[in-house]
């Protein structure tokens, strides 16, 4: 299916789907197109974030929007993440639909209080009388010595907070479709992108559409092992699957797409079929999303598991700056190949 696949370069796309008349655009463009259409369709929506209106435009994902919709609806703001998140919540409470944009996920710890203690709890604390339609976009950074304070992936923190939905689109198609769903949802949504996905191309319909929050997707069907891959890891997983295919291992790749609510059933069904579970995430290992997935399988499909669960993660260290260390820090398709092989052949 065209919407399940992403291409690492545009030429590759052109030789396949574009011949069939399908439009291919990058993840960056998919996000921007979604924002454009959302801003156009619903005047309650506005964007806020440090630099949303500057020529760089949040790695291009907001480029041109302030010229089109004005600086009030594409609002540059002070560097005051906690207070401004509160402002966004207040505006949402009053019926607006703010989209708060952070260039790096590392800046979210600044506003944990407003996200965790306020946005996430507001509907519940008020006995359902008030709700907070707020989308918080953040981008996981990586490479060029971004180092410890500019490359964190913190989805696991939000996974643990009831009242938040956590979305991690891995393809241009999902980026656009999930952004539509997020804005329509009416709850606080952590919308987590990955910088390294921005240049990838994939099929994206021009018209508005939505991808449901809470539904994962099988990116590749396979018999031998269930490989759950999140965000940028679906790229590495796809590469790994090709290598493993040659080794005679048939990998089923599952992209949960949304972390809360998690499409547990899809994963469980797959594990029941394959009997093996490998999880690849773009974050540190301990206490990560992978642990929750493994635990749910150990709770609900324990008897089907034929070998030890494997996780592919960053090590439990802050991110180092040196390129020599970044190389060790970030696992790639080779690490996935190794883990899957050991899942199938070992344990």
């Amino acid at each position: 299916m065209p919407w399940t696949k992403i291409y690492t370069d545009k030429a590759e796309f052109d030789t396949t789907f574009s011949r069939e008349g399908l439009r291919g655009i990058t993840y960056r463009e998919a996000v921007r197109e979604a924002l454009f259409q959302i801003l156009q369709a619903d005047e309650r929506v506005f964007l806020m974030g440090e630099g949303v209106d500057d020529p760089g435009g949040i790695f291009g994902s907001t480029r041109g929007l302030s010229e089109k919709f004005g600086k009030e609806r594409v609002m540059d703001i002070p560097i005051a993440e906690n207070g401004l998140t509160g402002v966004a919540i207040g505006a949402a409470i009053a019926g607006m639909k703010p989209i708060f944009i952070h260039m790096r996920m590392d800046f979210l710890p600044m506003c944990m209080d407003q996200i965790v203690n306020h946005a996430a709890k507001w509907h519940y604390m008020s006995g359902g009388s008030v709700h907070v339609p707020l989308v918080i976009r953040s981008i996981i950074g990586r490479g060029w010595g971004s180092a410890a304070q500019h490359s964190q992936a913190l989805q696991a923190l939000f996974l643990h907070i009831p009242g938040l939905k956590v979305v991690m689109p891995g393809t241009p198609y999902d980026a656009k479709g999930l952004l539509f769903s997020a804005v329509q949802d009416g709850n606080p949504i952590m919308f987590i992108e990955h910088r390294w996905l921005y240049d990838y191309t994939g099929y994206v319909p021009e018209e508005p559409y939505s991808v449901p929050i809470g539904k994962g997707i099988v990116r590749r069907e396979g018999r031998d092992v269930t490989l759950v891959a999140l965000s940028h890891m679906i790229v590495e997983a796809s590469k790994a699957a090709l290598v493993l295919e040659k080794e005679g291992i048939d990998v089923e790749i599952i992209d949960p797409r949304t972390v809360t609510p998690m499409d547990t059933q899809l994963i469980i069904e797959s594990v029941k079929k394959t009997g093996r579970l490998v999880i690849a995430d773009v974050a540190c290992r301990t206490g990560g999303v992978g642990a929750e997935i493994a635990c749910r399988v150990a709770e609900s499909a324990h008897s089907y598991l034929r070998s030890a669960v494997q996780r592919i993660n960053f090590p439990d260290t802050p991110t180092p700056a040196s390129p020599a260390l970044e190389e060790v820090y970030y696992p790639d398709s080779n690490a996935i190949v190794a883990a899957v092989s050991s899942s199938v052949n070992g344990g």
Partner: protein
Amino acid sequence: MEANGVKSKSRRADSADLSIGPHDTMEQRVSNMNTSSATLVEILRKMMLIRMFEEKIVDVYGVQDMKTPVHLSIGQEAIAVGVCENLETNDYVFTTHRSHGHGLAKGADPGKLYAEFYGRIDGYCKGKGGSMHLSVPEVGIHGTSAIVGGGIPLAVGTALASSMRGDERVSVSFFGDGAVDEGVFHESLNFAALKKLPVVFVCENNFYAVSSPISARQPHDDIARRAEGYNIPGFRLDGNDAIAVYHAAGQAVKRARNKEGPTLLECRTYRWKGHVGPDCDYENGCRPRFELDDWMDRCPIEILKKSLVRTGIMNGIQIQALVGEIHGQLNSALEWAKRSPYPNKSDVFKDVFFKGK
């Protein structure tokens, strides 16, 4: 230790000395003359309602079936009422852990408040919020945070919404002196000033955060002076003088409604009860007794009563009647609340996510 707000009587605000800072452009004429008798009586009634509403909590709390941490505002009623009398029903109000007075002043129903405190299904939050998380959207209270300072940016946010939509609604943020310690105070005032948002910041400076005196937290106690850094007007008010608060807040609300930007009102007052619960905290040494005594001598309700009687607007009999009427109202409210059932067990799993309307 210098007693808070006590020794330096001369620094207490009076009508002649309310404004500070070089940006005082707002007229600050506190005069009973231009307030209608009906309004004055209503202000007194609301203050008495708040006082008696909370005194009833003190009465029943010992039974230990009102299982919610109550932060009483007895002694501080003039601020809630003085401010809210200037507001329309759909104006936004954000309050704090100490919210009962603001809720009642804005028009919340005492019965539904009591029911909430008892954890019943007829409470404003269906028993999910308790005393600290008041939510009465129909009177403009769209949820309450008990995180110190947490509500301030929310009020700025509703004000931003009003400003973007071009509506006339004003937002009010009530908060304590403790919230001024927090960074979010700064971030909120900075942004509101930058965008000239229709919001009024009302700091209830009661000189303490739990047992911490302001002298242990801030380099000076002139909270109004903080306005200067944001280039907005800041006023120090006698928070026990309901009329002074009413007039100053009236100006600030007008300013906001006219899209002239935010105002910071520092209302100096004192809490009579302990930080939380029905007791007095001087008993365990949290605060000096004489400080409380001095402030009790200046009871905001007594001050207003006397002036209404003195000016012939009310007489003792009328006031007595008012007391009786409020007693009756509150007793029924309390009884009604106690008869309300508890939520169902399964309700614990509801309202995590909004499901659409």
